[in-house]
């Protein structure tokens, strides 16, 4: 199968996975390994550097990333303005030594909907500063187009609000973005609830899926991680194989000519 292209980096897995909300660090590690993902998201928060807990988590994440030969994808979770997001992105770049940034600028606390104005502003500043921006955005075609025009090679529209597990709220919007931005790497981010959601995104021709809660909050996160990995593969293969056109009327699968007893009673 084809690889996932993130700013020229070719990855075998099309699943990007979060590192939060797991029952334990051990389960997190096992779930990430089971998913086959090569990109793991993480964040920054206020902590005292002399406290050991924060350093332990960081070391643990480094071990996981090394084991899967993967990449860290820091996010700007919690930012509400372009200025906050740009500052956090710069701090992340220094710590994680990567110019990849999952850009989140939240405009509404209720549904954690991205602020499109601040997002575009932050994207422009970060791209000018050499970042490779992976913007988390709504499923608005024009917003995605603007992000692409600014230089985002990867765009990450939401399926539905973060952590809801509601799946693909607006399949038409998502299909239209795919149709109108054929050269962008499109990753469906947020709101994925079950493996079939991820499969559906891949059947639409999306390049990948980013999720966290759906795996971390499952009864068995490790098994669910594996299920998502397989769902993405199934969806991708279905898309590549070419899905049949829907038809308005029924067509028998079995040939009717010389069917036994056909029209016998007429």
């Amino acid at each position, binding site marked *: 199968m084809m690889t996932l292209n993130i700013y020229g980096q070719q990855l075998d897995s099309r699943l990007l996975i979060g590192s*939060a*909300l797991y029952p334990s660090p051990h389960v997190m590690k096992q779930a990430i390994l089971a998913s086959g993902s090569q990109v793991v*998201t993480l964040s920054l928060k206020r902590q005292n550097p002399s406290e050991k807990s924060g350093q332990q988590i960081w070391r643990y994440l480094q071990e996981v990333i090394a084991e899967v030969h993967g990449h860290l994808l820091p996010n700007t979770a919690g930012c509400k303005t372009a200025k906050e997001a740009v500052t956090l992105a710069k701090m992340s770049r220094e710590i994680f030594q990567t110019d990849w940034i999952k850009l989140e600028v939240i405009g509404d606390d209720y549904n954690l909907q991205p602020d499109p104005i601040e997002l575009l502003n932050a994207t422009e500043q970060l791209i000018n500063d050499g970042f490779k921006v992976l913007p988390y955005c709504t499923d608005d075609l024009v917003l995605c187009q603007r992000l692409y025009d600014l230089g985002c090679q990867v765009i990450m529209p939401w399926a539905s609000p973060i952590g809801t597990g509601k799946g693909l709220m607006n399949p038409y919007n998502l299909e239209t973005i795919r149709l109108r931005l054929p050269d962008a790497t499109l990753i469906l981010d947020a709101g994925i609830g079950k493996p079939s959601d991820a499969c559906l995104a891949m059947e639409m021709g999306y390049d990948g899926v980013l999720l966290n809660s759906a795996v971390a909050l499952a009864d068995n996160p490790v098994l669910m991680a594996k299920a998502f990995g397989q769902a993405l593969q199934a969806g991708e293969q279905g898309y590549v194989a070419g899905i049949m056109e829907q038809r308005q009327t029924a067509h028998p699968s079995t040939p009717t000519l010389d069917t036994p007893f056909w029209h016998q009673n007429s």
Partner: protein
Amino acid sequence: MNIHINGKAYSLSNEIHISVSSALTLHFIEPQQSTFAVALNGDFVGKEEYDTTLVKNGDSLDVLLPIQGG
């Protein structure tokens, strides 16, 4: 002067300003051995600027470390 580090207030009686490096040692033990990044009044301060960037009365430092994220 009065400054804040990660939201916590600190009063320094004799200084009118101190470097970011000095401010960090006010509260943090051996920060050089840790993975962290700093912002001063909401603006990023790179590690190479810790000795030359001054923290003044009313300033606010944020010290951030890695955590899990989605």
